[in-house]
């Protein structure tokens, strides 16, 4: 790419191919990023983005081709070597030790501290300064396992930026970040760029590309299908490259997200779920939400907006039957939070479906096949289990149908689920949870990590569910998603709850104000 300026690439892939058994995750990939350049890496779920990241971070080795740093071929056989080469990575799947605090997790990534005694005060200060310049607030004192994904995401970002790195790789960092965090992150990226740091940003949000990227590289089925300056691209172009069709109108539809189904709430049907003056507790004991009263009706989508960590996770945990409210009372599908029947098992049987925020920890069993993971939620179904015996043929048939319907990219129902790409894992979870005619759907960040095309598909599903008279509780940090789907909107912020109010009665900036914690408008 001699034509592009004199600066030699900081890091480059030359003809890199990576296979997993029969699957070719990357085929002859050429890719280069220069100092001070922000490269957006986009593509459908399963296109091969994270595989590239994993090779650059020393977690995977190319089968063919070479990786060059400063023009010299290097072998990044271990993360240690990648770190030494000045590469910092925020992985799509977090690499935090659940039982350690955020601070300790970051210290773990600071080899310069040696092996000896930790000066936690000092490290804490270093983290605070880093966090401040990032504009991110991080909880460094509680065990990571008790933190929601947004908090974990922030810790990962701080961890990656605690050192001065030459190349920063961010694999879908914006998936769970709220608008403010996202803005701060982009400021940081621009600052790093100015300091001459190279950045590779992986995202499914087209606007991100145009917000910060200099150049966009599009992957399809493991191959680079486009590599062009962001300025010269339109969202439609990007989508066209991603899906590999020539149909501009379809592409446009995907970008704008026009959908056929769009109808006023079928509200009025009696409540599926009643929350009365509910108080929720975080794992660390602190109060997340109090005085929450809310009715969920069949045929409507209620969305909870706001920065994560304000009680959304706790609400979902409780409604999923993993916890009981600290105060107040919940009645859901005939189950009562005061009674003994308030368990995950009972609520599932009563018809609660749950798309958890922490997919890998709570939603799937990594080392099991897709089929077995499907059974995880449907093992009470006559069709699948008869007299306590699993009917594998029926299971296989059903799963194959659902995989096809949801276009999950996989080698088949017997593939280990942790071998699927992140987005495809998410698609699988949706396919599973939407099945079996649930009456209440708890959807936490349902489109997290999904490519834009699939997001449209999922939105369609949620709207269909609403049409079918199901109650949907949506938690999302993506305001567009909320405004597109919700019939009623609520905001959790600063320990308070705003709303619910129906979407018609409130403007975007009002919601923004709520999220910021200002009680203007109907509270």
């Amino acid at each position: 790419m001699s034509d592009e300026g004199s600066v030699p690439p900081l890091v480059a892939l030359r003809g890199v191919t990576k296979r997993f058994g029969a699957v070719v995750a990357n085929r002859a990939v050429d890719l280069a990023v220069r100092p001070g350049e922000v490269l957006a890496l986009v593509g459908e779920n399963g296109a091969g983005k994270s595989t590239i990241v994993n090779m650059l971070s020393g977690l995977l080795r190319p089968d063919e081709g070479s990786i060059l740093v400063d023009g010299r071929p290097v072998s990044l056989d271990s993360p240690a070597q990648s770190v030494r080469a000045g590469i910092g990575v925020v992985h799509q799947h977090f690499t935090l030790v659940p039982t350690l605090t955020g601070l300790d997790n970051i210290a773990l990534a600071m080899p310069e501290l040696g092996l000896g005694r930790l000066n936690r005060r000092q490290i804490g200060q270093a983290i605070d300064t880093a966090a401040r310049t990032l504009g991110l607030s991080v909880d460094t004192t509680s065990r990571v396992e008790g933190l929601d994904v947004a908090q974990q995401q922030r810790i990962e970002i701080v961890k990656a930026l605690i050192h001065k790195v030459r190349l920063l790789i961010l694999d879908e960092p914006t998936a769970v970040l709220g608008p403010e965090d996202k803005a701060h992150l982009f400021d940081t990226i621009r600052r790093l760029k100015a300091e001459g740091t190279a950045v590779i940003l992986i995202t499914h949000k087209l606007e991100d590309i145009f917000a910060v990227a200099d150049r966009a590289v599009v992957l399809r089925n493991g191959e680079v299908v486009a590599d062009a300056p962001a300025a010269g691209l339109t969202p439609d172009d990007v989508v066209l490259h991603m899906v590999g069709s020539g149909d501009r109108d379809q592409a446009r539809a995907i970008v704008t997200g026009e959908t056929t189904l769009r109808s006023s709430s079928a509200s009025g049907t009696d409540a599926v779920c009643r929350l009365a003056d509910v108080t929720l507790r975080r794992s660390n004991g602190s109060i997340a939400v109090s005085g929450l009263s809310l009715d969920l009706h069949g045929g409507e989508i209620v969305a909870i907006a706001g920065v994560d960590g304000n009680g959304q996770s706790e609400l979902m945990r409780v409604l999923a039957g993993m916890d009981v409210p600290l105060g107040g009372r919940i009645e859901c599908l005939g189950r009562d939070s005061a009674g003994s029947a308030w368990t995950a098992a009972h609520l599932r049987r009563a018809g609660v479906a749950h798309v958890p925020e922490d997919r890998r920890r709570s939603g799937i069993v990594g080392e099991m096949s897709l089929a077995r993971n499907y059974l995880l939620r449907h093992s009470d179904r006559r069709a699948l289990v008869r007299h306590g015996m699993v009917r594998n043929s029926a299971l296989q048939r059903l799963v194959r149908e659902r995989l096809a319907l949801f276009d999950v990219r996989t080698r088949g129902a017997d593939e280990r689920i942790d071998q699927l790409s992140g987005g495809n894992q998410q698609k699988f979870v949706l396919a599973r949870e939407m099945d079996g005619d649930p009456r209440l759907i708890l959807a936490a960040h349902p489109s997290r990590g999904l490519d834009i095309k699939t997001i449209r598909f999922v939105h369609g599903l949620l709207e269909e569910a609403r049409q079918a008279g199901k109650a949907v509780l949506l938690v999302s940090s993506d305001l567009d998603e909320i405004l597109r789907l919700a019939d009623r909107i609520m905001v959790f912020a600063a320990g308070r709850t705003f709303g619910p109010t129906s979407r018609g009665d409130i403007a975007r900036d009002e919601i923004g104000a709520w999220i910021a914690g200002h009680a203007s408008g109907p509270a």
Partner: protein
Amino acid sequence: MTDRSDIARQAVIAAACIVALVVGAILLAGANPLSVAIGIGERALFTRSGFLEAVLRSIPLTILGLGIALAFRARVFNIGMDGQLIAGSVVAMALAPLVPLDAFGLLLLLSGGIVGGAAWGGIAGVIKGRFGGNEIIATIMLNYVALQILSWLVRGPMQETMRIIPRSDPLDAALRLPILFEATRIHAGLLIALAAVVAVAILARRSRYGFKLAVVGANAHAARYAGIDPRWIAGSVLTLSGALAGLAGAVEITGIYGRLQEGFAPGFGITAIAVALVARLNPLLVPVSALGFSLLYAGLGTLARNGVVPFPIINILEGAIIFVFLAGSVYVAHRAKRGQAETADG
């Protein structure tokens, strides 16, 4: 791929070192390593009585190994098979005076064994399932308790009427498992063990319960979200594997010894763990692995009898052979993987 061939090579080196150690020890004892090696193999593998002895030993090891396989699938570590086996044999023996002297009576004894073992495992199950106590401690402690209670029983309430030797009175012949083959000690327990293999295989690989075991073992947290209660699973599987241990105890009593006394199943519980793990917790492989270990013991037994080497060398060999086996399977596994990888790459 360097890693893989690396590991394969290291496996070879490790095995070589272990072998060298053993050969050294044997030479030091003034014996001939080769004749020792032959000594181990010959009777177990090439004589009828030696082989039959191994088969006999593999009966309890199979049943116990199945119990371990079930529990370990849920990452529930039942170290208490020895105690549960004793509990089973005690209950079976205690029933003897009460049951009719016929096949039905024998059936009752075996069921009694199952109940006894299940109860003993169930104690650990309650501690784990109800109180969240750790099963490793519970089961180890219950082993010691069972051993001592047995020691008391055969000197007290259950001692033979002559009250000389610490053991119970013998079972009536009608309550003994029939011998399968003339002039051998192979008894119907073999069939029971094989039946257990089938049953456990189905339970583990085909049933919803078996599936839940695996889920809890792999990701207790996701299990909880799916409405599976890991504690209930742990409690029930401890009871279940205890039941198998109890069955093994009853089978040993009714099949071989015909009465109760101390030390009739020394260290079987630990061996069973090795058996199950070597079988990779696959119920269908458990009997194979159990027979393998039994042959090993039969072979070492021969060596111990010949007295060509001082006894401790038998222990050294026991450990060394397991190590070499481990190294061997590592070697094979990584060769295989490499093969795949290459064909995939090529």
